[in-house]
């Protein structure tokens, strides 16, 4: 088993709010994870990098308000490739509390909206990775 948790950080579509993703990337790096900062990707390219790089976690940063459709499409693409159980899928950005349940139902393992702290994000990701590895 790998020692370090490997994470790929992705922005889908045209949404270019970049400080969220760079900040969380740094937080994860400082917490000892290996972070692949992939930036703008399509769903297909993001999944193929995730596979090639054998990551544990895929992080989607969505600040456009379109977190539900993007997450749904991403999960569908993972399911088609029978890869959903291979990765922990986490979503961060401007996500209202009202959408958290819907995202969880769609298949997001971790959801980090405004006000999430660095500790919360790191702890949650570590727990999810642990569960997945068992």
């Amino acid at each position, binding site marked *: 088993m790998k020692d370090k948790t490997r994470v790929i950080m992705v922005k889908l*579509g045209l949404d270019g709010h970049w*400080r969220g993703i760079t900040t969380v990337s740094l937080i994860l790096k400082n917490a000892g994870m290996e972070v692949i900062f992939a930036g703008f990707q399509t769903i297909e390219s993001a999944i193929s990098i995730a596979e090639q790089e054998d990551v544990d976690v895929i992080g989607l940063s969505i600040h456009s308000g379109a977190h539900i459709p993007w997450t749904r499409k991403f999960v569908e693409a993972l399911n088609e490739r029978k890869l959903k159980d291979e990765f922990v899928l986490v979503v961060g950005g401007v996500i209202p509390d009202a959408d958290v349940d819907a995202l969880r139902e769609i298949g997001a393992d971790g959801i980090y909206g405004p006000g999430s702290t660095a500790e919360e994000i790191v702890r949650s990701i570590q727990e999810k990775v642990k569960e997945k590895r068992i």
Partner: protein
Amino acid sequence: MFNEDDIADIKAEKEKWVEKAGNHKDAETFRVTPSGIKIKNVYTPEDISNLDYLKDVNFPGSYPYTRGVYPAMYRERPWTIRMFSGFATPEETNKRWKMLLNSGQTGFSAAVDLLTFYGTDPDDPGVDAEVEVGTTGVPLYSIRGVEALVKDLPIEDISVALVTEPMTAVALTSTYFNVAKNNGVPLARVAGTTQNDIGTMCIGYITRDSLEPDKLLKLACDLIEYCTAMKKAPRWNPINFTTYNYREGGINAVQEIAFGFTNAIDHIEELLKRGWHIDDFASRLAFHLSADRNFFEEIAKYRAARRIWARLLVEKYKAKDPRSIIMKYHVQTAGSSLTAQQPMVNIPRTAIQALEAVLGGCQSLHTNSYDEAICLPTEEAVKLAVRTQQVIMEETGVVDTIDPLAGSYYVEWLTGEIETRILDYMQEIETQGGFVKALASGWLHGEMQKAFNERQNAIAEGRETVIGINSHQENDREETYAPFKTNALAAGVEKERLVKLRKERNSQKILVLLDRLRADCTENKNVMPTVMELMGEGATLGEVAGVYREIWGIWDLPIAV
């Protein structure tokens, strides 16, 4: 402003006061503003003894414009209530704009969707239209959309701000000009603003498949040259250096103004290189600033910025026309100061920031809605934000006298202190080769990231207080209102509009014009005349931006972690 004897007396009295009031400890304890300026517990004439009223402050509407750009300010003309708004489809946004107009808004401002911002069309195979169309703003990629947006609105009397950046600024402005002309408002009379700000699309925010910064500078200057220098649209502000968007990334008030002014300097230099005189275009260089958390620092920032801009234009660029020298700006209250927790607290936050903008002498103002930490604003929330401005304008009396804080020992001292720090930081950017070079090298991104991380840490460690985050927290995170949702059917509406447009327009003519645009780009000509024709013929933003990308290639953004 005071004679030496007075200052000596005041100094002596202050020592006694410190002694008597038991202020020994407090007198030596500084508090620090978000820009890192150390603040004493009290200020006296001693702190501004070097200030020369006529030289440094003077009257409103008089050089160096510290007290405001117009002699009568709000007594003659209140600031414009201009709410940034757009979502779903042009028709739905048109309804929201009418509601805002009925609520007392006095200027329009179009928030465009990501496709419009980026220069692509809903039928482009490289984008997911269902997800992107109308999600963060109104889709305006062709003349049909803009026609629907302004339908039955009094655009001959009320100015419109088009909030899009150099990638699509020329094309969207051309589209608007065509629509205005068709609605009986000729170019000579059309009033409004295009944001057209390189920094916004490169550091405040980033765009996928962007152009190299020097190409964006070229496009931005094409619009300024056409509208202002060539006098084709003399009432249009072809650029609005949007320091607001940089500030939102976490930088401080000093950095905000220094980023904006060094950016403006690069545009000035480019236009001078093209052979124009400073007075041919400087009168229409406008700004869009932030009103952030620290009340007095923000007010001092506006006053200092006007003074620096006036002196820069006169001393360095030898501007003669007073209109070239005044720094006019729109203000937006700080979205980054809003919290998802206890959202109603955002109402007083915004009101206080709006008051800063007004006491600082803004020309137009957007107040954020309380729900904007989590969604686009609901109708109810946005109306409350408009009313907030109206309370300041009509009830408080703060507009009755101009620059009422002038002469405050603290405000005048802080204005001078901020001014010095802005000039120093501008020098630092200049040593990086100026704004555009520092952008291309990634230096500016580094400064932004550093500032953002520092602010996150300050909040996490409690050095900065945010109600609801690290002070007066409540465990209940239930939202007390239903978040606004955009219309999921927007993509279908827009695709249909596009199919119809492509059928109706003269495609042959557009192909010829697109070839002419390719030649303009290759030969480094001003693209505006060709794009004006293209948009009038029904070309799309995606077609125009597609030519830029084809001829100039894509910029690999210097962002890494």
